């Protein structure tokens, strides 16, 4: 293995969870090898990938001989190990707020609109799932708007990029691009989203900049 290539990220270009980690890696300046997992072709179900993650989800990080899946877990692992350009503040209250915002996204919003869960719902009952996804996103965004409106500066919790921003940036883009969420209801989040679009790490990590972009049709 070459120098600086010991970090491997299994990712899908369109996955917002993978995007979070790509953003964090870019922000911290950690070089990594990109391994595409084509979710449309079902590559997440291959025996080799199952050994890495029995839940068949991306992203998965392999760092030396540590294998971590789940973007929140990967984020905390990176934050501990690579202390350059920290993504969690020292102040305990702002730190807790960042953990909370990321957790609302990771547990209360994204799971309700991930492709696998929506497909399961459709398969089991043929339910109209886009409205369900929109309902959960709107509920979550209302909560996030309340959490950020009195603390946001240039970024979600002040003047530096932290965990909340890493999770918010991909979530807002997904919500707008895939689920037609009306961001005028969330002025703080909308303003943050515009700020993120000006960041180099946002562009480097965004779906269309990935090696597997546009290789499959959704």
């Amino acid at each position, binding site marked *: 293995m070459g120098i600086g290539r010991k970090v491997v990220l299994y990712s899908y270009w369109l996955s917002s969870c993978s995007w979070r980690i790509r953003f964090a890696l870019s922000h911290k300046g950690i070089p990594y090898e990109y391994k595409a997992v084509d979710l449309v072709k079902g590559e997440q179900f291959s025996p080799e990938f199952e050994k890495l*993650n*029995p*839940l068949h*989800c991306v992203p998965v990080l392999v760092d030396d001989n*540590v*294998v*971590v*899946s*789940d973007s*929140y*877990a990967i984020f*905390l*692992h990176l934050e*501990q*190990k690579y202390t350059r350009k920290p993504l969690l503040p020292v102040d*305990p*209250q702002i*730190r*807790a*707020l960042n*953990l*909370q915002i990321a*957790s*609302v996204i*990771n*547990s*209360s919003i*994204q*799971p*309700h609109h991930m492709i696998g*869960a929506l497909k*399961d719902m459709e398969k*089991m*009952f043929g*339910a*109209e799932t886009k409205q*369900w996804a929109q309902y959960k996103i709107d509920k979550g965004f209302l*909560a996030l708007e*309340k*959490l950020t409106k009195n603390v946001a500066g240039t970024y979600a919790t002040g003047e530096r990029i932290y965990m909340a921003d890493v999770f918010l940036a991909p979530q807002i883009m997904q919500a707008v691009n895939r689920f037609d969420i009306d961001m005028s209801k969330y002025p703080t989040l909308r303003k943050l989203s515009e700020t993120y679009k000006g960041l180099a790490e946002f562009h480097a990590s965004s779906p269309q900049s990935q090696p597997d972009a546009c290789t499959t049709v959704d």
Partner: protein
Amino acid sequence: MASEENKKLKLYSYWRSSCSFRVRIALNLKGLKYDYKPVNLLKGEQSHPEFLKLNPVGFVPVLVDGDFVLADSLAIIMYLDDKYPQHPLLPTDIHKRAINFQASHIVSSTIQPLQNISVINYIGEKVSPDEKLPWVQSVLRKGFTALEKLLKDHTGRYATGDEIFLADVFLAPQLHAAFTRFNIPMNEFPILSRLHETYNATPAFQEASPQNQPDAVH
């Protein structure tokens, strides 16, 4: 208001909320006393103006520590672990930490959100009350199958060895719900059922258990 009163931790909780159960376990493990403030989710008390004034996000659990208010079980637990270092909830070994983060997130993002009250109600309303239990069971089985694979090379007396860590705090409430409320047969998941029995015999977990809470309905 007496300053002593202000110093005591307060936890807004619902007896059956597995997210509240997690925080109760963490508080017990660390020997932290707290005032229990019940919020009846079935009566919609989380949407009442008094509760929303405290936590505009409208979720339980909520921790009040002096004048600091924090919601989201993971954020609360990480905050408690930072501020009250007795009985640390994360191991020092980096591999073990990663396993703990991962197991906790399988519960908090892949299992719990897809089987909580709002999803169950949605399915009951949009599809049929008869589909509620099969949906919950399919979500639980998927997550538990992954957890059995993840933990099999790491368990000792507890999930990731012979000491209680973050994974146990998240697993115990989820296993309690699965085996006592949702009729998942224990023999399908040998590691998880053994852990469930162990948690039932551990005081910090027993005391945090739903039926032992002030607002429990028997």
